């Protein structure tokens, strides 16, 4: 017969058959392994706690007199003549090193305005004659709810930057035809008695995708 194929014969032929049989069994076993091991997440991931919402707050960290007025809050702290006498400017005392002695009634005030304790005279800003207002050195009276001109009387370049929106936060609408903007006042960020911004706790830092690449292994070992 012309078309009869040659016979697989001898040891070679038998080996081929064994291998084909073995391959079949091996493939089926592999299939079973794949099906059994199909599920599960192959990467263990670290738990990352959600960030504390306090870090998302946009409210300034200080409230000013103006804010209190707007919010109709208790203004009794600003009622100076509840304690002081009208027409009688309060005396200012210094210690031997010419450091101002803050009276006990104002112990919440820490003086730290300017280096070398230079700015240590209350009436540099407060109005000696009327404690309910503030006063610029040139004599202008300034009300508690509009202090930037007072601060600006010494901090000229900063005042100019602030007026142009380059110092301090301006929020709301950059496009003034679409909405309002709010500009924070000096005392929203700076304590007038100690204007340096205090340090604070930073929000949590970044987490890497693979916290430890050297030992990064799938939680469930692939087959």
């Amino acid at each position: 017969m012309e078309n009869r194929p040659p016979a697989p014969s001898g040891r070679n032929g038998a080996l081929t058959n064994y291998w084909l049989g073995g391959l079949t069994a091996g493939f089926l076993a592999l299939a079973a392994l794949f099906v059994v091991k199909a599920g599960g997440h192959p990467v263990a991931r670290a738990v990352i706690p959600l960030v504390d919402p306090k870090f998302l707050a946009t409210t300034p960290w200080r409230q000013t007199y103006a804010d209190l007025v707007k919010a109709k809050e208790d203004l009794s702290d600003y009622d100076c003549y509840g304690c002081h006498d009208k027409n009688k400017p309060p005396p200012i005392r210094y210690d031997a090193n010419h450091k101002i002695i803050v009276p006990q009634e104002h112990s919440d005030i820490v003086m730290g305005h300017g280096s070398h304790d230079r700015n240590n005279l209350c009436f540099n800003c407060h109005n000696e004659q009327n404690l309910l207002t503030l006063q610029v050195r040139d004599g202008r009276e300034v009300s508690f709810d509009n202090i930037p001109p007072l601060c600006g009387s010494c901090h000229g370049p900063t005042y100019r930057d602030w007026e142009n929106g380059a110092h301090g936060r301006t929020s709301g609408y950059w496009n003034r035809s679409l909405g309002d903007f709010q500009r924070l006042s000096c005392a929203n960020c700076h304590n007038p008695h100690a204007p340096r911004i205090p340090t604070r706790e930073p929000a949590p830092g970044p987490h890497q995708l693979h916290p430890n690449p050297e030992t990064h292994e799938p939680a469930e070992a692939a087959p």
Partner: protein
Amino acid sequence: MSPSFPPPDKSSDAAMSRRNFLRGCAAFGGLTALAASLAPLREMGEMGDYTSKEQFLQKYYKELTPEDMTKVIARIEGEVQRQYGLRPHVRDLKPMDGVEFVYCLNLTRCIGCRKCVHACVAENNQSRNPEIQYIRVLKMPHGSMDVEKGDHTYDAKQVPEKGFFYMPVQCQQCKNPPCVKVCPVNATWQEKDGITVIDYDWCIGCRYCEAACPYWARRFNFTKPEIPRERINPNMAYLGNRPRKQGVMEKCHFCIQRTRAGRYPACLEVCPVGARKFGNILDPDSEVSYILREKRVFIQLKEEMGTSPRFFYYFDK
């Protein structure tokens, strides 16, 4: 040329059919194993988010007609509702005429509190785990602008620390963006108002842009993003903060959903020291125009790259 074969013996036919049968068995076994090896794909529906037919066939952003866009937005809103249980408001906000955005950041003021990082995550619906953040704050030793000296993971109790300044880095919205140049499918491009955007439904996830960016500003969704329901921001934009899918790039887009509606970006709103300034550089009265006009020194990070960032670092004193 035909080789000569030995004369066939009697068992030859049987041997041949046995051989063919065994070959068939092995082939069957192989095919079974092939099919079984794809078993993990059964989890595709719940785990990965590969696509519905509409999404697979969705057209390129610039080729969508207004009617297409309406349908696509309805699809996205539906997906978000199914997944997070709230109806978002998705808009396709276009750039405004006569507006080119610029960002200025005051390095004298920044205290490194990282509030901007997290406000950005909250505003832009970034994945919380794995973590995707568009802003990276570097703690830098005084006197150097070499980012290789920066510390990314500082963990101080209180900031700022003495002897250091802090430099937040995010997408610099380059005028000459390397990421746009390298994208093989035009999935990222620069818009008229200077914002480089990404079509999340077009990106193929090759990460070439991530390799090209000199500011390490681009982020990849290595797995399905995870956002808690209660922290979804429903005010969304197509090219902005709508939730992304597994396997695509994302990055800072100057809060397109806010800024193209006239508002300041979220990172600026949360800054406790007013170090961040944003606005329209074509408007001479804007804060950013004032800063670039009045401040002596401002820095475009890695200026030598020729990328010409729209993000400027400046100093007060």
